[in-house]
């Protein structure tokens, strides 16, 4: 498994944790060690990390909304009694 194109073709699945462990180790070893693939690997890691950071800064629901939803759920719950 040293074919760069093949490894790059599996890179996203590797980053997504979607390939079996043994193969994942091979892919990772190549991505870390290959001069050609390593910059691509780092680039994709940065991209995915940036996405996660961007999303973490998204807003949370308003407290009034959370309270109202809980009230409604509570009401329905007691309808079952």
């Amino acid at each position, binding site marked *: 498994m040293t074919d760069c*194109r*093949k490894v*790059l*073709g*599996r*890179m*996203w*699945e590797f980053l*997504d*944790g*979607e390939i079996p462990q043994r193969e994942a180790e091979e892919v990772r070893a190549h991505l870390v060690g290959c001069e050609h693939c390593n*910059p*691509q690997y*780092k*680039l*994709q890691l*940065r*991209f*995915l*990390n*940036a*996405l*996660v*950071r*961007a*999303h973490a*800064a*998204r*807003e*949370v*629901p*308003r407290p009034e*909304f*959370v309270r*109202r*939803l*809980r009230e*409604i*759920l*509570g009401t*329905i*719950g*007691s*309808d*079952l*009694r």
Partner: protein
Amino acid sequence: MFDPTMPQSPATPDAKRAAFEAEALVHLDVVYRYALSLTHDRAEAEDLTQDTFLRAFRHWDQYTPGTNARAWLFTICRNQFRRRRERQAREEPTDTEELESLAAAALQASAVPPDAAEGFFETPELGDVLRKELDNLPEEFREVVILSDLQDQSYADIATVLGVPLGTVKSRLFRGRRLLQERLVEYARDAGLLPGTGGTR
């Protein structure tokens, strides 16, 4: 509200509420953000979130404890969203599945020069740009990128949430990421964040 055709649950109402609180309601923030990413509108996201949890509560007996509650909630949320949208539009996405070449081609085409990317992804304003570009992605790509990259769902769970084959999930995810990267590059060029890249075409 109570469906007599449902299997008899041994859980008392209090136990049901406690279980719902512990396994479903803890995901309120996450579901709200998912709803927001679908609707792009705070008020609509609240309505959608509320629909989702009310529906989830009514159908709580269909949830298998210990399984992926988020994926289950996302499925409900998305179905509710679809239902709302169906009145307005109809669309039939098509898919191809040349995944390996797609993924590899995406990297060639993403055209972020790896060297220049060093500081690029740490640029302070990148977060805003990413959020905006993510919101602008075509829906079929956006929802997969959100579920995978932001909500950390597996391909298999995404396939369940969306009701599409696994290959379609991958195809849409890879295309979505590629589009997103291309748009980031465009933005970066315009803003002068990427130095002399020259060889884009």
